[in-house]
């Protein structure tokens, strides 16, 4: 019988070995951010409202009504005087862009950001195993991922993916790819490059719903270095806790609210319909409904369930007025119980205010998003990272804090994810030298007075002023 027991040891040891291997593997499947670098274009690319006015005037297809509309949009957009535009705007050629304008714009961005990122992290380009590039409105052959691989001479067995046309929420979609690939492979480095290409996408016509897109987007980008190597856990900045994607393409109204198409004269532009806020709210609610149970503590969920049951009971028994104005859709849940910081996509003032109302956020919570919108404008998919950098620069991020990122995109998508801060951060990235100037005393656009008069002009007697 001793022999029997001895023989039994072998499978038992093997069993323990298998179990230990599985536990070990699951620990290797976490996604950590080692470092990230936002892009700050050179100062000669800075534009303010005055320059925007000039650009608007340049377009011969626009009349007084369009001027009014656009200037009103620019002035009340929450975008400040120090945002950046692509170089093509300065040479006046925005209506006839060449292929190389788009390419040079992208090359300028990634040579700067990726170079800084890799040298600071001490990783050589040959160590990168996974490269995901998401730049919405630019598709060329070879892809931008190939361009990066060529520029940095990366390895031939690299896994590269080039995502396009996924809108302003593409950052989170790329994170989804990286997170999934990390679960199947051990000890890998991933590079996520996100930006937006503005040079080839200027709309030269006068369709109202399409000219708005011209004025809102600004240049920006970010390169992020991720890994699933748990030996580097102590160097990591953030750990990904969960990620939820919601796609409302099945609803026709949501799908049609943000479409790239040709206007009546055949000019390609970005059509933003009036149903955009409604589609955004709908997808936001759907997304929150899925992610809330995953990020909030059980106590809060229990409380919410009890409160909503009580409310339902009240309504059924007629003790609360049925016709009470709903107001903005309030989640009713206290998000602050599970999240300390909120990274909101800087789609515009309306977007930030809308999310603030839904999640019941204070000005302190909204400061990073509002300041990013003011300083860098709407940089599309990379805006989330500028907001994160602001929080870091203001030394708000302490170990154990949780950061909630949420963004919207054409289609209509709402993607969100939750990060946990793994060590006290205070570097500041692109905000380093100027964060002490924020928040500024006033956010009112200085051109409100200068261009305010345009609201009273009569179209028949209007002449473009010479100044």
């Amino acid at each position: 019988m001793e022999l029997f027991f001895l023989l039994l040891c072998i499978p038992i040891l093997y069993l323990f070995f298998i179990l230990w291997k599985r536990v070990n593997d699951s620990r290797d499947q976490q996604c950590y951010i080692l470092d990230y670098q936002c892009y700050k274009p050179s100062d000669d690319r800075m534009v303010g409202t005055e320059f925007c006015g000039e650009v608007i005037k340049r377009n011969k297809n626009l009349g007084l009504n369009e001027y009014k509309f656009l200037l009103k949009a620019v002035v009340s957009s929450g975008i400040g005087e120090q945002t950046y535009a692509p170089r093509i705007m300065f040479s006046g050629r925005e209506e006839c862009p060449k292929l190389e304008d788009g390419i040079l714009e992208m090359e300028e961005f990634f040579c700067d950001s990726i170079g800084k990122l890799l040298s600071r992290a001490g990783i050589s380009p040959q160590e990168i195993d996974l490269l995901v590039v998401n730049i919405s409105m630019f598709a060329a052959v070879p892809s931008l991922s190939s361009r990066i691989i060529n520029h940095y001479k990366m390895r031939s067995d690299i896994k590269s993916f080039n995502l396009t046309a996924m809108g302003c929420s593409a950052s989170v979609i790329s994170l989804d790819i990286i997170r999934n690939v990390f679960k199947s492979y051990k000890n890998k480095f991933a590079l996520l490059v996100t930006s937006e290409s503005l040079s080839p996408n200027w709309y030269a016509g006068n369709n109202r719903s399409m000219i708005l897109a011209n004025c809102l987007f600004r240049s920006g980008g970010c390169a992020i270095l991720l890994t699933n190597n748990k030996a580097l856990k102590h160097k990591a900045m953030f750990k990904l806790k969960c990620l939820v994607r919601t796609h409302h393409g099945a609803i026709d109204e949501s799908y049609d609210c943000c479409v790239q198409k040709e206007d009546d004269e055949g000019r390609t532009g970005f059509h933003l319909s009036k149903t955009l806020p409604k589609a955004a709210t709908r997808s936001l609610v759907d997304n929150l409904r899925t992610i809330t149970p995953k990020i909030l503590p059980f106590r809060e969920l229990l409380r919410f369930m009890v409160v909503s049951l009580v409310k339902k009971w009240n309504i059924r028994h007629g003790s609360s007025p049925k016709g009470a104005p709903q107001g903005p859709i309030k989640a009713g849940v206290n998000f602050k119980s599970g999240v300390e910081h909120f990274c909101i996509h800087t789609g515009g003032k309306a977007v930030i205010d809308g999310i603030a109302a839904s999640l019941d956020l204070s000005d302190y919570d909204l400061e990073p998003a509002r300041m990013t919108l003011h300083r860098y404008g709407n940089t599309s998919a990379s805006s989330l990272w500028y907001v994160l950098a602001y929080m870091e620069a203001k030394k708000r991020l302490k170990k154990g804090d949780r950061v909630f990122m949420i963004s919207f995109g054409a289609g209509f998508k709402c993607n969100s994810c939750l990060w946990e801060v793994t060590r006290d951060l205070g570097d500041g990235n692109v905000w380093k030298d100027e964060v002490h100037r924020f928040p500024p005393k006033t956010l009112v656009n200085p051109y409100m007075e200068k261009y305010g008069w345009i609201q009273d002009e009569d179209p028949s007697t209007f002449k473009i002023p010479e100044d």
Partner: protein
Amino acid sequence: MPPTLPDFSNSVNLKYVKLGYHYLVDHFLTLTLTPVMIGIVVEIVRLGPDELLNMWNSVHFDLIQLLCSSFLLVFIATVYFMSKPRCIYLVDYACYKPPVTCRVPFATFMEHSRLILSNNPKSVEFQMRILERSGLGEETCLPPAIHYIPPKPTMEAARGEAEVVIFSAMDSLFEKTGLKPKDIDILIVNCSLFSPTPSLSAMVINKYKLRSNIKSFNLSGMGCSAGLISIDLARDLLQVHPNSNAVVVSTEIITPNYYQGKERAMLLPNCLFRMGGAAILLSNRRSERRRAKYRLVHVVRTHKGADDKAYRCVFEEEDREGKVGINLSKDLMAIAGEALKSNITTIGPLVLPGSEQLLFLLTLIGRKIFNPKWKPYIPDFKMAFEHFCIHAGGRAVIDELQKNLQLSAEHVEASRMTLHRFGNTSSSSLWYEMNYIESKGRMKKGDRVWQIAFGSGFKCNSAVWKCNRTIKTPTGGPWDDCIDRYPVHIPEVVKL
């Protein structure tokens, strides 16, 4: 007179020696274990049934010990099966068959060319020469917008083409597999040169009202090998998400990318690229095991972007007049050969039988140690695969690969015939070729297929599939009405 007969008999002997060697090494384990098993059986028979019964009775089994050991066995078996990587099945796929009205026979193409490039007879002449030697047939198709003189490549028309191609392929896929749109968990769309906002994946989600928690991805700019990149991504996702269906849509939208200038190097893609698309259903559900057509064995990706020459060989740029087109460099074949070699180096050890690997290793050692002048041993891939699907990039690509891999005409028949019937449909051409092999009734259970595709950047990607069940004809694919006419003999030059 050189004595030829002895050589002949020598070669026959050599063939048998080779066969014997391969058999010996491949079945090494079986050949060594069989004598051992026979020995044990002989020993048992010798002992006689009475002695065996005595031995059995002398082994006491407590109930607890019995329970423990059986529980242990069951547990180990469960853990083992759970930790195996999930099997990825290709349930079925559907290829888009363009309508006859979109056909572009040589005569139509040349007439167009003469009318549009009326000021450049040299360019017209160039296109004619390319077409003569291209290996394309008379039934390839271009989208309606390109049939106009001059072509009308509006975004509206491009979206129209995308809708027709993708939705037809998807409808066909739903019909063949009985898949419900709500059951799709992962959607990957790849189209190199057309990416409108919202993306083509969003367009598919909108049309078929897919679920709101679908994981969708839109890859673009990745060239003709993007189909295999999408399969790679689908595989990684299916490893993480159990019980899921993934739909991969591979296509190339020609409308916005038809070169309208007169640079010769850029007119080449116009002569080769044609309309086409494919939708593929992958799954990791156990229930699909019975009806799946193939099982995915390997996907190997190689990216030669670090080499500047390779990077520049397929390049989109503007010509002198500012018209955008794709420039194919003259070194394309050499670079493709290099990229293939890299890819083979990785995939070889994964798929080649032991005998080939041993030979390769021995020659490698021999070259390093004894004499570097020994010829490098090129492993025989025909021993690892029954069928080859080489991306129908052009006649030269197929010729080059046939030479490099030492394949026979029958092996490359699927590629050549797809090029003839459908032209270069970019990332979906591999699926037309697969369908050709199936329609010919050549796909039997256990057959291994190797799909190789090249793409801009420069990438060489390959996928290895194993056939799960013998596929009956007709397959309900794009070859159904014309498979009897194939194979056709494609002359070197078709005189126009």
